[in-house]
């Protein structure tokens, strides 16, 4: 998330497909395979809903394993030439993708907002610019990538070259349909691979709109998109012997299943599997009434960012007991002023959850919290909406007060539900923070730099935001400890996950070894 630009004029975008909208909507979308739009072999389509209205936006292909095979055919046809394309040229293509995304920023922002429900202020300021930046970052990374030479002895040299893996499978979640695609596509394509990508079932359309924009920029077959149910095509892709690597973001059981399939094919995997991230506030945040205190309050409220549908959602707030009442009252005041509604209004801070089932899950968890004895400090129910949005999947930003052994503190709710508790001292903060199966993200807020450093080192999570939260710049490695996954995205080290190492071990000695 980048800093919001000053106070801009409020804009209410027209819904895609309606008169005056900058987003065109076709009645039906096919798969993007080999640079062409191909109908699903089965001929079946399904409705794609808008979560703000629960009304269909369009139809998308309801694909079957045969479509995955067609996509793999196209990818295999394209991979050799793309893999041999110079780093210079590949970087040029990635930069052109970024330029195309920037040129269509508003169109893509409105598209993603309408399909996912996230507020357009977020897609305009974060999702779309960050997606473009990821392509630029990996263009730069591949352009400047160097191979290595090791002098084994005076006449023996080990050369190490990077080679692409070939064709890779990528399975994308619904919460950041375009940014997660960029996180996975940019390094894969930079490293010279062709990709077959399966978007999440609730959000297939945004990525197809992206393909409209970047389809001509990327050589045919290097990017292929197949939409459809995971049970039908997910396995057909992940277990396919024709992929050389699989990347997945989602939940733990599918993560295990993907590793199981990868084991059968002996291919690498990268996984990002969620979290239950602690956000820790030490008493010195209240030492001054200043911008930093204001930033810390916002830091807690960021649990509602993207309506809580974020793997790193700071969904457990740990507040030092000395300041609990004063700090929490400031936060509750801020939460109470969150504007919820039409995701296409730039004044809206929180939109609807992505689907009815997500809404049900959140309601169910708040019930679980109540049954466990958690106190509802704010929210705790669906948000009644009128008019066009009456059927939308809106849920109030909610805070539950309890303790870390409660289920609402242990399982990722994936909604705007914060579980808050207190701690006495640094040792207890670390104990609570690490008392979770997950280890993806964490936040630490303090004016004491030494403490911040100690905490950052002690928390078992791949990313510890220190005096900030929910920033995702390319160049900062992102990935999980414990059951939160394998691999690090948004950093050039991801190129290693998409590359093979070729070693040429060369002797310049004309004499025999003398063994035989």
């Amino acid at each position, binding site marked *: 998330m980048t800093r919001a630009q000053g106070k801009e004029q409020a804009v209410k975008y027209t819904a895609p497909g309606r008169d005056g909208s900058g987003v065109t909507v076709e009645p039906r979308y096919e798969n993007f395979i080999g640079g062409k739009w191909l109908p699903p072999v089965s001929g079946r389509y399904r409705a794609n809903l808008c979560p703000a209205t629960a009304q269909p936006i369009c139809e998308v292909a309801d694909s079957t394993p045969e479509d995955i095979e067609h996509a793999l055919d196209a990818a295999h046809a394209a991979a050799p030439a793309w893999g041999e394309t110079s780093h210079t040229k590949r970087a040029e293509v990635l930069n052109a993708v970024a330029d195309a995304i920037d040129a269509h920023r508003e169109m893509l922002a409105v598209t993603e907002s309408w399909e996912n429900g996230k507020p357009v202020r977020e897609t305009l300021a974060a999702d779309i610019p960050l997606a473009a930046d990821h392509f630029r970052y990996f263009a730069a990374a591949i352009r400047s990538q160097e191979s290595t030479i090791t002098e084994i002895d005076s006449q023996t040299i080990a050369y190490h070259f990077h080679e692409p893996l070939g064709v890779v499978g990528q399975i994308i979640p619904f919460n950041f349909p375009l940014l997660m695609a960029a996180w996975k596509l940019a390094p894969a394509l930079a490293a010279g691979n062709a990709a077959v990508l399966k978007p999440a079932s609730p959000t297939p359309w945004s990525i197809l709109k992206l393909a409209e924009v970047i389809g001509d920029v990327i050589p045919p077959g290097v990017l292929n998109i197949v939409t459809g149910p995971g049970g039908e095509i997910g396995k057909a892709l*992940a277990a396919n012997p024709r992929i050389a690597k699989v990347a997945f973001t989602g939940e733990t059981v599918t993560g295990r299943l993907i590793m199981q399939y990868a084991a059968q094919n002996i291919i690498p995997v990268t996984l990002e599997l969620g979290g239950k991230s602690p956000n820790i506030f030490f008493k010195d945040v209240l030492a001054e009434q200043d911008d930093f205190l204001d930033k810390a309050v916002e830091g807690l409220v960021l649990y509602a960012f993207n309506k809580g549908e974020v*793997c790193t959602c700071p969904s457990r707030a740990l507040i030092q007991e000395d300041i609990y009442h004063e700090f929490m009252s400031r936060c509750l005041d801020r939460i109470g002023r969150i504007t919820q509604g039409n995701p296409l209004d730039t004044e809206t801070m929180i939109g609807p959850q992505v689907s009815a089932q997500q809404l049900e899950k959140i309601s169910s968890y708040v019930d679980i919290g109540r049954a466990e004895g958690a106190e509802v400090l704010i929210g705790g129910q669906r948000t009644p909406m009128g008019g066009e949005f009456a059927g939308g999947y809106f849920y109030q930003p909610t805070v539950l007060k309890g303790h870390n052994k409660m289920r609402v503190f242990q399982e990722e709710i*994936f909604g705007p539900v914060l579980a808050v508790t207190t701690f006495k001292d640094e040792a207890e903060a670390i104990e609570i923070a690490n008392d979770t*199966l997950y280890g993806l993200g964490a936040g630490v807020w303090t004016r004491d730099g030494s403490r911040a450093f100690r905490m950052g080192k002690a928390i078992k999570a791949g990313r510890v935001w220190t005096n900030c939260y929910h920033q995702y710049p390319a160049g900062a490695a992102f990935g999980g400890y414990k059951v939160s996954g394998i691999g690090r995205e948004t950093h050039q080290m991801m190129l290693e996950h998409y590359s093979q190492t070729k070693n040429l071990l060369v002797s310049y000695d004309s004499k025999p070894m003398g063994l035989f």
Partner: protein
Amino acid sequence: MTGVSGRVTATPAARQAIAGLLARGGPVMFIQSAGCCGGTAPMCFRQGEFLLGPGDALLGEVDGCPYYIDERLDVAWGRPRLVLDVEPGFAEGFSLAAGAGEHFVARPAAAAGGSRVSPGRRACGPGPRPGTSAR
């Protein structure tokens, strides 16, 4: 084998969905998922599709179909009793659907019997005590 055992019960709708899956392709297994977008979903696979490890505990059975949970998750959730149900929506991950446009959901047995039913949710009764069997 019919009936439920262990810490899992099922609504009539869930048992009907299971009967459909059994009739169409043979036995299925359930694995409790967690985390991220599809978290808390009971993933349904053909029997043997998911490779079980020593850390997977048998939570119970529904009509002969085993329901497993990661032991660490079971502890973190306080060894819950779950009610298997179906709802409209996409099946998460690679899970089999419960039927056309429906997916399986797992609810805590206590909350499922509670007074509050959120809009659009189907009511379902509390299940039997752990260890009892309707078999």
